[in-house]
């Protein structure tokens, strides 16, 4: 044993690689990872020494002046004149509401502190989401306090140089002008799509009053249902609502059903991932399996067991191939259809084996398999997916089709009507159509033909520029509305938590004003509710936040005839090459469709796959990158390994670097006469000739956060498909630095994420404990190895260590904890949605630092989502095209023997009696020793007063301007806002723990007092009475997680959920061999590949790589050589 311990894992192994650089093993990267903080994080640049001294002198001067204010500042307490009922200062109130989005109303519970909404949570009464929220809902509360919001209404004045100036006017005065204009006639309303019933009822009245109605969304989530309905010859849309909790086999055709490209993200994630919860071998046998064919590497693709790279424009051929395989396997009688499909799929021979085996697997699970098609794909694919589901018997079991209303007139018909003069007055509500459609609508010309235009929007944006007036729109937390969830199974209210902060108007009030009713939005919602609820109580509806209803389900229909009408000539698009590329336009992770471009939390939350912040990029495949590199040397897309040439000189690295950051070459993309310029970024896992572009960035009229970020893809849009072909790339010779957190926090060459296939797991459930250096070393706990989890947590046995550990047993310590907190993160459940990152930011007052500081590695997220790639075969610097993706959320592990604590000179970080690694900000002097000594790199340092100063004036220190105070209203009052010079990190949401403990104790004492009816002196309260019941405390990241990957609780209680999971054989500690004894442990990932598939591997790539490196002798010399 001791001999083995002499050979710990060497970091030379590349069992995981996180970035192209680390794969390439460049010298720069090696130096970079060897530093405690990544590049620039601990260097004071950007300020000259001279100016620094000047600044310091000035600040000392100011400090001297400040000393005169040594006296205690006088503070006043302002109580209510008439206290509102049920409001207790210091106790947060929770209200049920929902966020209206283009993906349906998201049911929410919002926390309010003395009338200020601070934190958004999912409404657990809406069972499909189980109380989870997506990343956008989490970030939406920041928009309420955005200082760049339209703080009222404005009249436009155009100066001589064409610049627009906005003069503040009262909202009422604009509404009065509007009344006159409406009576003139030729009026149209342009809105973004909504699922509001209030709007629906007003829409009817508006139509009857002669006002025309148009809808537009850049990312149209309803397009699939409209295409399908039309293809089947129906007058309605046909919405596919998957029911994935019963699905055993899923085939996704370019359908990102777990991500932001499709609706129903949360309930899909919750249902689908519940079929991947593996606690024992029986679960592993029942595990579901996901096949996906896609062009982009989506989060869904990251979860998939089998992934095929197919360009989106080739999807009709591929879907036909799958369908024809299905028809022949079930012995379908219609020969003409078979022949037709064969014809359609003629160009996809290389994918035949993959498709054939996948179909066989779908068929082996009758009624428990489902085929999903991406909403951006053409009607043909929607039709094929529908027909396959029908033939598989999935309709009614794993997928439901519900009837929805047909879509409204499009923006193109609006443009032509303005052109021919039949519309002269336009009201633009919500969305941002001018930005999104400028690629195919000439708004400059149109605006000249308009006599009057009003924009109702949250902020003054591109669409405001053509309007005479901008009306400030109330945030959803300030307005009333009522709508349905995406699956149309529930009505949900939008209930305001705060009166409008500014002179703004809600959409419902505005529309009601248009039809001359002038109802307030509250009355409208009340009326709609009584209409739909059969006399149910309105207050009850608001309290529960949901009201069940029944969607109109669709009885299946044979689609053979419709399928036969697909013309092969149309789809036989020319073969894609480097001169005939396809551009796939998808919603951006950060900005979505542009809505969140001014949201700092979203801008800084790294894209789950590319890990970019504050920017978007054109993603291309490594194959295309190689071709470009050979055509245009010096592009620097692909870093090469640094090696010595024959003369002993270091060969130059092909990649372009600046300040340790790889520069992204800027290229021009030409599609059908339109072009944009944008930076390129190489992304493994992409289809060879796809360019992935995201919409939502490059906004010209946006607040201070979004200004100057990203490139604008909208000039390429045509108003039809979001998949464009015939594109070509031409480098401009310029470069741009992208703030990528991908290379940060690298944990190179060790068994960090542990994985196995289901088969391997069944034969060896404890596979995770046979990986990593600790499997080679003597057991961490020495002679105490076999003690129970509870004993280990409370006594912290020394094992064979020479150091004393604190003893927290009741008998041995006068300071004992009645709980011992711990957490598990199930890597099998994580889809990388990143909602936890923003939830933590919202709960814990984590600041936004800006792109410049992210480039210096100073982002402040307490929980980060590491994304690892692994691949089949790799050869030197060759970037693989087929990768497996693993996500791992990493926050402070609350090590029992924490390395950070022993190096703190001022005891600012110490352990508490319940096993929390505490961080006392007021003690911290900012030595940063703790961060240096943390093996998990989870500590974050406040290099500046992020919360207090503007991000662009950080370097001016105390002389810089203060931040807008409106943002402070959204801060959580239960958490300290940290100042410059202190370290911070995950606290396990200690504020929630303490609140729950206090509530439990207070309740226990009051209950006992009430029951005894005496002065309480004789009351006996046991430890059990004072313990917080399991499941009461949910950390912010846990509460938001749609797949329940994170479980938190008391590990000294053997019956708690977290104790049970920690006793699961899949449980392991990251870097456990360091004897840090982390309280956060991980449950190893289990994949479920099909052995018959052509791309089957008996082990996950990462596991095979690990074993190759850890046991080279087992595999012969060729593996051991490097």
């Amino acid at each position, binding site marked *: 044993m001791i001999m083995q311990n002499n050979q710990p894992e060497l970091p030379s192994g590349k069992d995981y690689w996180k970035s192209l650089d680390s794969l390439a093993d460049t010298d720069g990267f090696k130096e970079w990872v060897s530093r405690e903080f990544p590049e620039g994080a601990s260097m004071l640049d950007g300020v000259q020494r001279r100016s620094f001294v000047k600044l310091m002198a000035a600040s000392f001067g100011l400090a001297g002046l400040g000393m005169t204010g040594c006296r*205690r500042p*006088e*503070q*006043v*307490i*302002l*109580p*209510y*004149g*008439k*206290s509102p009922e049920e409001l*207790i*200062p*210091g*106790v947060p109130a929770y209200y049920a509401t929902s966020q209206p989005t283009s993906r349906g109303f998201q049911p929410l519970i919002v926390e309010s502190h003395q009338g200020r909404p601070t934190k958004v949570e999912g409404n657990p009464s809406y069972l499909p989401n189980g109380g989870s929220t997506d990343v956008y809902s989490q970030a939406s509360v920041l928009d309420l306090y955005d200082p760049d919001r339209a703080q009222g209404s404005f009249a436009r004045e155009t100066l001589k140089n064409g610049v627009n100036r906005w003069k503040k006017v009262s909202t009422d005065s604009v509404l009065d002008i509007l009344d006159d204009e409406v009576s003139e006639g030729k009026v149209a309303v342009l809105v973004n799509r909504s699922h509001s019933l209030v709007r629906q009822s007003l829409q009817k009245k508006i139509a009857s009053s002669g006002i025309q109605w148009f809808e537009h969304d850049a990312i149209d989530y309803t397009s699939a249902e409209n295409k399908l309905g039309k293809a089947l010859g129906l007058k309605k849309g046909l919405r596919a609502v998957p029911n994935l909790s019963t699905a055993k086999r899923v085939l996704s055709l370019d359908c990102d059903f777990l991500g932001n490209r499709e609706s129903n993200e949360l309930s899909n994630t919750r249902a689908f991932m519940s079929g991947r919860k593996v606690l024992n071998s029986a679960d592993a046998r029942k595990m579901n399996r996901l096949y996906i064919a896609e062009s982009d590497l989506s989060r869904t693709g990251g979860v998939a067991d089998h992934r095929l790279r197919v360009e989106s424009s080739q999807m009709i051929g591929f879907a036909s191939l799958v369908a024809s395989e299905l028809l022949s396997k079930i012995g379908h009688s219609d020969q003409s259809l078979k022949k037709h499909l064969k014809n359609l799929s003629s160009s996809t021979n290389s994918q035949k084996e993959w498709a054939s085996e996948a179909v066989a697997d779908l068929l082996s699970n009758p009624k428990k398999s489902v085929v999903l098609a991406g909403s951006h794909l053409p009607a043909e694919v929607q039709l094929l997916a529908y027909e396959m589901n029908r033939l598989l018997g999935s309709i009614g079991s794993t997928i439901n089709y519900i009837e929805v209303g047909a879509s409204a007139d499009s923006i193109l018909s609006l443009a032509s009507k303005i052109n021919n003069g039949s519309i002269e007055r336009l009201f633009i509500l919500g969305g941002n159509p001018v930005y999104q459609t400028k690629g195919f609508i000439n708004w400059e010309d149109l605006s000249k033909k308009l006599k009057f235009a009003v924009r109702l929007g949250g902020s003054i944006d591109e669409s405001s520029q053509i309007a005479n007036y901008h009306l400030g729109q109330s945030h959803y937390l300030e307005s009333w509305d009522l709508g349905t969830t995406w699956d149309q199974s529930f009505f949900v209210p939008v209930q305001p938590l705060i009166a409008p902060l500014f002179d703004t108007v809600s959409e419902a009030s505005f529309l009601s004003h248009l039809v001359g009713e002038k109802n307030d939005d509250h009355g409208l919602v009340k009326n709609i509710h009584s209409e739909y609820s059969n006399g149910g109580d309105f207050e009850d509806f608001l309290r529960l936040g949901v009201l069940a209803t029944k969607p109109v389900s669709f009885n299946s229909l044979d689609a053979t005839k419709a399928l036969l009408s697909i013309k092969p000539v149309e789809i036989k698009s020319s073969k894609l090459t480097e001169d005939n590329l396809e551009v796939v336009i998808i919603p951006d992770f950060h900005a979505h469709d542009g809505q969140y471009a001014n949201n700092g939390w979203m801008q800084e939350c790294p894209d789950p796959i590319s890990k970019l912040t504050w920017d978007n990029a054109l993603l291309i495949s490594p194959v295309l990158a190689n071709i470009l590199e050979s055509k245009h040397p010096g592009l620097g897309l692909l870093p090469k390994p640094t090696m010595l040439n024959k003369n002993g000189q270091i060969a130059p690295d092909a990649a372009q670097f600046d300040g340790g950051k790889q520069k992204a070459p800027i290229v021009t993309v030409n599609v059908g006469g339109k072009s944009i310029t944008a930076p390129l970024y190489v992304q493994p896992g992409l289809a060879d000739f796809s360019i992935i572009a995201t919409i939502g960035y490059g906004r010209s009229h946006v607040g201070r956060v979004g200004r100057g970020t990203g490139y604008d893809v909208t000039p390429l849009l045509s108003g039809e498909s979001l998949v464009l072909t015939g594109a070509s790339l031409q480098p401009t010779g310029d470069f741009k630095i992208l703030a990528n957190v991908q290379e940060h926090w690298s944990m190179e060459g060790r068994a960090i994420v542990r994985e196995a296939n289901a088969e391997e797991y069944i034969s060896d459930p404890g596979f995770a404990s046979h990986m990593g250096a600790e499997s080679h070393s003597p057991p961490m706990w020495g002679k105490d190895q076999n003690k129970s989890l509870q004993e280990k947590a409370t006594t912290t046995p020394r094992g064979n260590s020479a150091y004393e550990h604190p003893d927290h047993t009741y008998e041995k310590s006068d*300071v*004992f904890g*009645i709980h011992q907190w711990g957490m598990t993160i199930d890597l099998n459940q994580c889809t990388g949605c990143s909602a936890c990152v923003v939830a933590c930011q919202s709960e814990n007052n984590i600041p936004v630092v800006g792109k410049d500081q992210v480039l210096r590695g100073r982002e402040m997220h307490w929980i980060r989502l590491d994304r690892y790639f692994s691949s089949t075969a790799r050869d030197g610097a060759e970037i693989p095209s087929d990768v497996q993706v693993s996500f791992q959320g990493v926050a402070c592990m609350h090590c029992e023997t924490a390395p950070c604590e022993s190096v703190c000179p001022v005891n600012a970080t*110490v*352990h*508490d*009696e*319940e096993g*929390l690694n*505490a*961080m*006392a*900000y*007021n*003690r911290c002097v900012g030595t940063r020793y703790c961060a240096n000594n943390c093996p998990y790199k989870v500590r974050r340092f406040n290099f500046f007063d992020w919360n207090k100063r503007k991000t662009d004036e950080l370097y001016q220190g105390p002389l810089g301007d203060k931040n807008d105070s409106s943002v402070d209203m959204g801060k959580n009052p*239960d*958490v*300290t*806002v940290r100042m410059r010079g202190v370290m911070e990190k995950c*606290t396990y949401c*200690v*504020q929630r*723990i*303490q609140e729950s403990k*206090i509530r439990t*104790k*207070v309740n226990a*004492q*009051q209950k006992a*007092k009430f029951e005894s009816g005496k*002065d*309480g*002196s*004789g*009351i*006996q*309260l*046991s*430890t059990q*009475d*004072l313990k917080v019941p399991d499941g009461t405390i949910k950390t912010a990241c846990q509460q938001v997680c749609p797949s329940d990957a994170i479980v938190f609780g008391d590990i000294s209680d053997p019956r708690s959920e977290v104790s049970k999971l920690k006793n699961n054989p899949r449980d392991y500690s990251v870097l456990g061999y360091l004897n840090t004894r982390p309280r956060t442990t991980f449950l190893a990932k289990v994949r479920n590949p099909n052995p018959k598939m052509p791309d089957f591997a008996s082990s996950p790539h990462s596991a095979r790589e690990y074993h190759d490196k850890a046991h080279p002798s087992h595999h012969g010399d060729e593996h051991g050589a490097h």
Partner: protein
Amino acid sequence: MRNIFPRWSNTVPLKLIVGLGMVGSVLVAGITYYATPKYTRVGYQPTQPVSYNHEFHAGELGIDCRYCHTGVDKSSHANIPGANVCMSCHQNVKSDSALLEPVRDSYYGEDANKDGKLSEGEDLNGDGILNAGPAIPWVRIHKAPDYVYFNHAIHVNRGISCVECHGRVDQMVEVHHDKHLSMAFCLDCHRNPEKALRPLDEVTNLSWEADLSDHSDPLIAQVHAGLELKENWGVNPPLSCTGCHR
């Protein structure tokens, strides 16, 4: 070259040491006395906008603390009452007192004729609601630093009296800062809660003392009573940072 330094210079080092020592001691003593909460906080007695008399209301009349500070057993804050609480008595008692002018202003606000209903000409800001008047700007006396999360509910419900931190408010005409409330003050009690624990129905009785019965010293009597309560209730106050700092 023998006498570079004059003779008196021989004593300079000694004088320096003594002098520096004295300056040092004075500095240390000065800071300990003047710059700690015992000096900076205790005795702070700002003038309040309304001369509310705690001695009269809480002492003489015997109004319970929780009649006004309603949130004290439910919330982390012990709230200052709204004007409506004052007016629940003062609508009838001393309803015309000039001293209560700010209270009436705050309570009635736009309600000029004081009938509780929106009448003609009362809706000054035109929002359709009868708005309350300006809040009474009570000056804050007790203030924990921003990084300290003190919770009133847990203390009051677990048998810690108001008097432990706020002193005999029932004997103060005008409230002043009575205890220094430094971290040492908190920790003293958290280490030895038996010195402060008392039966639950005596929490707001500021004059309560433990039954002397067979003890001669009131402190010993308190500790005996407190130890019993501590044992019975499982009182185990946190001593680590996370108890108060979040």
